[in-house]
């Protein structure tokens, strides 16, 4: 069920320009330099580049006041769909910003004015090789370390995802080493694992997204696994939120449960099943990946009507970002001796995106790199460290590219890599 813009007229019309979509929550507000959590308005400054502006564009389009011009398309796609606006709005008003922005993109694509060339190229790669890079299908699991043999069948299915499979293999390798160290049997899908399609969902390429989703759901079902474990929050969101959303279902209706590595590992660290005893004398800061933190709550399908005062019948279960994965990675790092975690100014649901999501890395790479550089600067200036830890290979790839471009001295680690470094001697595979 593709999103329909007209279903979001109320959301667009009831915006009051309070800027909750762009400002950091005022309770957590710091210096003006770090006051805005929306990368798009932070860079482009003109109001169409904030959610409150895009809602005006949506109204203008629905009312026939605006046409889909190149600048309209630019305003709509220069956005990571990072969800900062959605969560910010739901602090006060409960307007469905994220879905409205996605519906707006869908409308642009349906009218033949989108997506952008980079999005089409990435879609072409997916369609021809089932990964976003156009790399060889056979090599999807060639990163598997020698000495680690996935089970033919297991309750836990490790979903590698395109980035860990092809470019951020250190994350995938670290993940399976951790599973081995914890004594967890896991299976993989091999060539049956296709790109999760998150980029397709966010760029309105619904037909291919549906094909990918259906294949992956069937493949997971056929594997017999109960739990799908991902290293990549983008994959997590696709499997957990976008697939059921597109199919008109709820997350709880899916034939599998999806968890991120940090959710899976935190209880094991806590109960001692995995021991992170080796000291790591490092001062680090943690970047909350958008799709692991504020955007990772389950999707609950809602159908109903809006009555007087905008009251919904039946009431809706809101995704406000409250129950995202915020604390688990922090608890894991807290268990590593010698590791000092210092927070940045914008953190948790107010975190500034890495810049990669929403098709920006594929379609508007310059903006992706600018955003990453902003975040790296924030890490240095507000946390006073040159070591950034994250839990997302997509973020890591983008930060790594930004560092290459700027010559910055920042180091970036996936949390899985740190955990492997901290494993008790002899435990590392």
């Amino acid at each position, binding site marked *: 069920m593709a999103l329909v813009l007209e279903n979001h007229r*109320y959301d667009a019309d009831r915006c009051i320009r309070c800027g909750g979509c762009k400002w950091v929550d005022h*309770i957590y507000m710091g210096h003006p330099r770090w006051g805005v959590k929306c990368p798009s308005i932070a860079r482009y400054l003109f109001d169409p580049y904030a959610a409150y502006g895009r809602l005006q564009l949506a109204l203008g389009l629905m009312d026939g006041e605006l046409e889909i011009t190149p600048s309209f398309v630019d305003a709509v796609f220069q956005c990571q769909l990072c969800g900062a606006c959605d969560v910010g709005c739901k602090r006060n008003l409960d307007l469905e910003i994220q879905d409205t922005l996605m519906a707006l993109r869908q409308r642009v694509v349906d009218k033949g004015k989108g997506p952008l060339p980079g999005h089409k190229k990435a879609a072409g790669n997916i369609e021809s090789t089932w990964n976003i890079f156009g790399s060889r299908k056979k090599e999807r699991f060639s990163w598997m370390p020698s000495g680690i043999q996935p089970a033919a069948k297991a309750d836990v299915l490790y979903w590698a995802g395109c980035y860990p499979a092809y470019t951020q293999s250190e994350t995938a390798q670290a993940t399976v080493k951790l599973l081995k160290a914890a004594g967890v049997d896991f299976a993989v899908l091999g060539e049956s694992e296709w790109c999760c399609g998150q980029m397709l969902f966010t760029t309105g390429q619904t037909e291919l997204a549906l094909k990918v989703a259906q294949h992956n759901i069937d493949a997971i079902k056929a594997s017999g696994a109960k739990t799908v474990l991902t290293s990549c929050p983008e994959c997590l969101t696709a499997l957990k939120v976008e697939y059921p959303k597109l199919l008109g279902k709820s997350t709880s209706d899916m034939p599998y449960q999806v968890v991120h590595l940090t959710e899976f590992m935190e209880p094991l660290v806590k109960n001692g099943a995995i021991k992170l005893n080796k000291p790591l004398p490092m001062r680090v800061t943690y970047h909350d990946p958008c799709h692991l933190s504020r955007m990772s709550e389950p999707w609950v399908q809602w159908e109903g009507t809006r009555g007087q005062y905008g009251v919904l019948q039946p009431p809706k279960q809101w995704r406000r970002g409250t129950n*995202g994965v915020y604390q688990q990675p922090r608890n894991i790092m807290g268990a590593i001796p010698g590791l000092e975690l210092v927070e940045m100014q914008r953190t948790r649901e107010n975190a500034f995106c890495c810049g990669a999501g929403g098709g920006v890395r594929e379609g508007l790479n310059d903006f992706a790199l600018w955003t990453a550089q902003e975040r790296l600067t924030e890490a240095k200036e507000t946390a006073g460290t040159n070591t950034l830890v994250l839990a997302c290979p997509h973020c890591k790839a983008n930060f790594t590219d930004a560092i290459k471009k700027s010559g910055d001295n920042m180091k970036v680690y996936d949390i899985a890599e740190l955990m492997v470094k901290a494993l008790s001697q002899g435990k590392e595979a």
Partner: protein
Amino acid sequence: MSLPKETIRALESIVGPQYVSEDPVVCQVYARGGYGKDIVLGRGNLKPACVVLPGSTEEVQSIVKLANRYKTPFVPVGTFWFNSCGPYRENVISIDLKRMNKIEIDDRNMYAVCEPYVIFSQLQHEAMKRGLYMMVPGGGAQVSVVNNVTGAGYSPLNYRIGGPQRRILGVEWVMPDGEILKLGSASMLKEYFWGEGPGPDLRGILRGPQGWQGGLGIFTKAAVKLYPFQPERLVPTGISPDTTLELPTKRMRRYNITYPDQPSLVKAMREVSKAEIGAAITKVPVMWRYRARSTSKEHFWELWKGAKEDLQKNTETILLVVIIGYTSEKQVEYEERVLTDIVTETGGTLRRTKQTDESWIKNADSAGMWWSAGGYISVKINVDSLDHALKSGRDAAALKKKYLEGAVDDYGDPGWFQISSFGHEGYNEFLVEFDATSDPKVSHRIDNFYVDAVKQDVKEGCYSGMQMSYGPVGITGPAYGDHHILLKEIKEMFDPGYLSNPPRPFEFDEKIERECPWVKKDW
């Protein structure tokens, strides 16, 4: 709508081409929105011909001079919380001040110099880091400090630190003709610490009755007073939407006190202010209590529908008092003892209160006012004595019955009232929540209510507060010292071409005539 190419090129040469846009997609977004969007205040707004983003006072000055040269109206755009940032004339230049967000704090002399895009939560953060504080206004933590102190500036924290007009110190002002005027010490000493001199002090004109909202040029810098706070950190906690500041209870405490009726609550307000204790005092509107308990809009309505019967049986009212130990922990203990005595003497009951702050210290959830019904407006904002505030609130509650259909029934609650300056000033804000989407005539009724509420104040001798500025000047002017004539004279002296956000400050009357056939304009 478009400006001559020559004008656009000239603007580009001032700020750089990347900071000028005449694209219809950009201009569309600068037309409307913000406070007042559903009623007369927001009706008829137009798209600007172009939007420009200056980065300095010099650039603002050059833009305004250019506008004068080409006789082109201009509208300053702050955080766009208020719909007066939307043009009401064709071929306007919107001057978006977003790039001007510098803040400098002089700890020793306790003031902050803010550019127009510094907002209150940012100022409060920087002030509190230095053991100082300011208020956060009813407009919300997201509004521009400069724009708010020069236009409104009301908050329960004004109880101790006084009204907004007293907070303005040195000011840098790009006049409607593009000349720069510096006020107070900023004029002669290049420092912003004092408003009264040496040098000109035009702060009375600068604010007028309640501010000009861009009708008298652009304030590019304003120094505001900061006040000594207490030394302990208020710890931010929670995940959205449940974020809050934990109060350091040895130095700060909140008290919810219930009273069996309004007269006893008012008596307590007076006694507290006579004793000169406390940092903030406000009567909490009944609806806010229900809102705070609700987990969703649907939940709120379920609770609120059931509230009617309870409220008819029980007229209990809530007084919120905040105590701050500015000087010591002993101050908190002393003030708490005095407060406890007053509560006992006035028949109140101290209720268990969470020692956290969601609103007023660093945040103010103004946007949340739209949450329950989707539409909201303060039909009255009185700034006078407490007696006037109470009277005007009661009158408005009675008048509201006439316009109630389609608006949220508040069951006769007179709104939000408080005292400022240790009780020397009273404040009433009469809140109306409504649904503008299911029946457009609801907002027509609110337009009529808005105008009638001003007429009611005039008739009853209550000062009509902020409606002096964004209300029918044709009604309030003759009633209050012919101030409309004074406004006109000042406007024409400073801005003879009516280029600065025209037709400020007379747009309300014009909009009623042009955009609201459902309101009888009989003045």
